[in-house]
């Protein structure tokens, strides 16, 4: 599965993308797994209120299932326009 990071999440983690083999059933479980990787991941995922998530390019929430997901992206609230 591709895990993508944008904006300050990308900066805090230090790169834009990880390829991950995971058994995580939900986004929240994936976040737990990522937090355990390294301090910079723990820092990026410290406050989930400050983050948004998309699964296969659709905005969703942290309880969303990852069953057949190919791409998960984490980013701060969007500031378009």
């Amino acid at each position, binding site marked *: 599965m591709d895990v993508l990071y944008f904006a*300050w999440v990308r900066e805090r983690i230090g790169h834009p993308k990880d390829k991950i083999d995971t058994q995580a059933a939900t986004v929240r479980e994936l976040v737990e797994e990522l937090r355990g990787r390294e301090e910079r991941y723990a820092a990026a995922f410290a406050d989930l209120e400050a983050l948004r998530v998309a699964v296969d*390019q*659709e905005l969703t929430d942290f309880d969303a299932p990852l069953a057949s997901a190919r791409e998960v992206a984490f980013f*701060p609230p969007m*500031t*378009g*326009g």
Partner: protein
Amino acid sequence: MDIRVQEAPFDLGAEANIFAGRQAGMGAVVTFTGIVRDLEAGLNMMEIEHYPGMTERAITEIASEAMTRWSLGDALVIHRHGRLGPDEVIMMVATAARHRVDAFEAAQYLMDYLKSRAPFWKKEITREGGQWVAARDEDEQALDRW
């Protein structure tokens, strides 16, 4: 419906003319333009990051919803990414309808949703360094009225 996500600048006047010119039976065209503010703090650059693939998809969904909710003949969204200087045009939307209320409301709807549901992130770069622009509560609340 015409959705473009691009790094290159575009000609606002030409785009507005082409859009208005290709409408048949539409009595109203509304356009909105977003421009990089020249901040007192000495803004040098605005860096706009986006999520290729999801960006086009999200804007298409937003515009399709606008076409369904209002009686629109057409809609245009052009949004740039990359590095932009003060006073540069970031984006534009245009809507065409038989009557102005539909065109105005749909344009506002498009802008409200593009602000907080299209995956763009702005970073202001000044002499002091870079700072990610924080999303504002008002922008999120603006969606409630729709």
